[in-house]
C-alpha cells in the first residue's frame, strides 16, 4: 500500500520541485501538473481495485504502531473522493489557457493536502492537512491579476478561516485533554465514556466551526459569495465544486467515529437546515449570476450536511451522491458562465445569440433542481428516502428541504426565462471561451453517462455507504497492532514494527 503514501507525497514533491524547474525550463508549468495528477489518478485506481478486492487497508507512518504514530485508513469512501479530487483538478487543468507558476503550485498543494485529508486517521494530522488546503485557498482566492477586490475578499476569507481553525484547534486541545490521544480509532473506542457529554459536544461544535468554514456551513459561509464573485471562475469551480466536499467528508468521519450519539447529529442537522434556508433565500434575492451560483453551492452543501446527519448508511449514500453530483454540475456552470454578463437583467435574450451554451446551462440547472431523469433527481430522491426512513426530526426537516427545492426551482427557472426572453436583445454576447469548452463538454458528457447508468452507480454507492458506516472494521484495521489486548488501554504493547 505504498501507493497511498505516494498519493500525498507526489504532489508535494512536484510543488517543491516546480519553482526550481521553472527557473531553468519555463514550459514545465504546462505539463508538470497533469503528469502528477494523472499518476495520482492511476495510483488511486490501483487503490480502488485493491480496496474492492481485499477490503479496507491501513498503513502507518514512521513504523510506529497506530495510537503512537500517524495512520492512514484506505476505504472506498476515501478513495472515491480522492479520485474525484484528482479528476476534478485534471478537468480544470484543461481549462487553463495561460498557466502561472504560483497558481499551479497552489493547486498541486491543494491536491496533495486533499488526498491526505481523505486518508488520514489522526485528528491533528487532519488539522494540518486542512490548514494547507485552507492557506492555499486563501492564496488562490487572491490570484486574480487586476483585482484588488479579490484581495479584499481573500482577506476577509482568511480572517474568518483562520479564526475558525484556531477554534477548531481548541476543540482538538479539549479532546486531547479529555482522552490523551489523537488517533481516530483509539478515540472511537474511548468516545462513549469520555466524549458523549456536554464537554465532548462542545469539542464537536468547535471542530464543526473549524471544518465548517471550508464546508460552507451555516454561520461561517459569508465568504462564499464574496470569493466566488471576485475570483476567476476556474478557482471558484475548484473551491466550490471540489474542495468544499472534502471538509464535509471529514465532518462525516468525525461524526461516525467519535460522535455516534444523537445530539451531535441533531446539531449538524440544525446547521444544515439553517444554511439551506438562508442560502436559497439569498440566492433568490441575488441579482448577480456568480452570487446566485455561490449561494446555490452553499445550499447544495447544506443538503449534503443534512444527508450526513441522518444516521445509517442511507443518509451517507445520499450525501455522497449529492456531493458527487454537485462536483459535476457546479464547476461546469462556473466555467460556462465565465464570459456572460454578471448581472441577471443583462442576460435577457441571451439564448438567441449563443444557443448551445444556453441549452447547456438549462440542462445543468435542471439537474441541479432535480428533474427526474437527471442524476440530481436521484440524489435528492435518496435523501428524501433516507430522511423519511429515519423518522422523528428528520421527517420534519424534509418539509423544509422540499420548500427549499421549490425556491431553488423558482430562481433557476427565472434565470432560464430571462435567457429565453424575446423582447429585448442583449448588447453583446460572447460565446464561452474555447478554453472553457473542453471541461464543460467533458463534465456534461459524464453527467449524461451517469444519467444512463443510474442503477449500477446507485448499487455501488450503497456498498460504499455500507462500508463507511462500518466503524468496527475501521477500528480493527487501524489498531491491528494491539487489538489482541483491548482490555488494557494503559498498557498496550507498543512495538516498533519491522517489515
Amino acid at each position, binding site marked *: 500500500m505504498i501507493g497511498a503514501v505516494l498519493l500525498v507525497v507526489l504532489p508535494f514533491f512536484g510543488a517543491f520541485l516546480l519553482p526550481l524547474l521553472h527557473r531553468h525550463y519555463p514550459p514545465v508549468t504546462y505539463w508538470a501538473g497533469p503528469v502528477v495528477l494523472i499518476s495520482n489518478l492511476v495510483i488511486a485506481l490501483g487503490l480502488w481495485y485493491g480496496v474492492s478486492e481485499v477490503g479496507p487497508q491501513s498503513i502507518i507512518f514512521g513504523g510506529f504502531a497506530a495510537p503512537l504514530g500517524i495512520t492512514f485508513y484506505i476505504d472506498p469512501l476515501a478513495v472515491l473522493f480522492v479520485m474525484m479530487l484528482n479528476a476534478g483538478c485534471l478537468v480544470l487543468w484543461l481549462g487553463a489557457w495561460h498557466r502561472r507558476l504560483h497558481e499551479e503550485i497552489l493547486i498541486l498543494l491543494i491536491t496533495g493536502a486533499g488526498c491526505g485529508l481523505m486518508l488520514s486517521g489522526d485528528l491533528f494530522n487532519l488539522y494540518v492537512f486542512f490548514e494547507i488546503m485552507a492557506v492555499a485557498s486563501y492564496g488562490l482566492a487572491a490570484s*486574480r491579476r487586476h483585482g*484588488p477586490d479579490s484581495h479584499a475578499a481573500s482577506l476577509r476569507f482568511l480572517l474568518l478561516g483562520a479564526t475558525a481553525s484556531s477554534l477548531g*484547534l481548541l476543540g482538538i486541545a479539549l479532546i486531547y485533554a479529555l482522552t490523551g490521544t489523537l488517533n481516530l480509532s483509539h478515540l472511537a473506542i474511548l468516545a462513549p465514556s469520555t466524549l458523549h457529554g456536554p464537554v465532548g459536544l462542545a469539542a464537536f461544535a468547535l471542530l464543526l466551526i473549524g471544518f465548517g468554514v471550508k464546508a460552507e456551513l451555516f454561520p461561517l459561509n459569508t465568504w462564499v459569495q464574496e470569493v466566488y464573485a471576485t475570483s476567476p471562475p476556474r478557482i471558484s469551480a475548484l473551491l466550490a465544486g471540489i474542495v468544499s466536499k472534502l471538509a464535509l467528508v471529514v465532518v462525516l468521519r468525525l461524526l461516525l467515529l467519535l460522535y455516534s450519539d444523537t445530539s451531535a447529529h441533531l446539531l449538524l442537522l440544525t446547521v444544515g437546515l439553517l444554511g439551506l434556508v438562508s442560502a436559497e433565500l439569498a440566492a433568490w434575492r441575488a441579482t448577480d449570476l456568480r452570487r446566485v451560483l455561490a449561494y446555490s453551492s452553499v445550499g447544495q452543501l447544506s443538503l449534503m450536511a443534512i444527508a450526513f446527519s441522518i444516521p445509517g448508511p442511507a443518509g451517507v449514500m445520499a450525501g455522497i451522491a449529492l456531493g458527487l453530483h454537485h462536483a459535476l454540475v457546479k464547476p461546469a456552470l462556473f466555467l460556462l458562465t465565465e464570459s456572460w454578463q454578471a448581472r441577471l437583467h443583462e442576460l435577457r435574450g441571451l439564448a438567441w445569440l449563443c444557443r448551445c451554451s444556453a441549452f447547456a446551462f438549462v440542462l445543468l440547472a435542471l439537474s441541479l433542481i432535480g428533474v427526474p431523469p437527471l442524476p440530481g433527481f436521484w440524489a435528492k430522491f435518496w435523501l428524501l428516502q433516507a430522511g423519511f426512513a429515519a423518522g422523528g426530526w428528520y421527517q420534519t426537516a424534509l418539509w423544509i428541504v422540499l420548500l427549499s427545492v421549490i425556491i431553488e426551482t423558482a430562481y433557476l427557472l427565472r434565470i432560464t426565462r430571462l435567457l429565453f426572453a424575446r423582447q429585448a436583445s442583449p448588447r453583446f454576447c460572447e460565446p464561452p471561451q474555447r478554453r472553457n469548452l473542453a471541461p464543460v463538454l467533458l463534465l456534461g458528457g459524464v453527467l449524461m453517462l451517469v444519467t444512463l447508468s443510474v442503477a449500477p452507480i446507485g448499487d455501488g454507492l450503497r456498498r460504499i455507504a455500507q462500508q463507511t458506516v462500518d466503524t468496527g472494521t475501521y477500528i480493527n484495521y487501524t489498531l491491528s497492532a494491539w487489538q489482541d489486548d483491548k482490555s488494557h488501554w494503559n498498557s498496550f504493547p507498543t512495538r516498533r514494527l519491522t517489515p
Partner: protein
Amino acid sequence: MLVEEAAWLYVFAYLGAIGLILLGLYGLVMSRHLIRMLLGLSLLEAGVNLFLIAAGYRPGGVAPILTEATRGLLMVDPIPQALVLTAIVIGVGVQALALALVIKVYQAYGTLDMDALTAHIAAVPVARSAPTSVSAEEASP
C-alpha cells in the same frame, strides 16, 4: 476540583489561556480595523497554544529531555509540545499571508477599515471588463 499540590499552575495556565482566547475573539468581533483584527487573531492563537501546553502539563513533571539529572523522573507529556511547535509556525505563515494582503488592499483602496472593504466587495459586478481584460492579457504571454 483541584487537590494537587501544584494545582495553581493549572489554574494560572488555563485561566491565562481562556483570557487570551476571549481577548482575541473580542478584538476580532468588536474591532473594524484590519490590523487590530489580525492582532486579535494572534492573541487567539497564543491562547489556544497555551491551552494545549497546559493540557499536557503534569504536576511535578520535568521537561521531556533525557539527561543524567532527569533519568527516572516523571516527565510532562511531549505530544502537545510537538503540536504547539507546529501550530506556532502555522500561525506565523497565516499572519504573513494576511499582512501581505493588508498591504495590497491598502495600496488599492487606501483604507484599512473592514466595513469599507465589505462595501467594495458588495459592489463587485460593476464592470464586465474584468474577465475579458484578464483573458486578453493572459492570452498573450
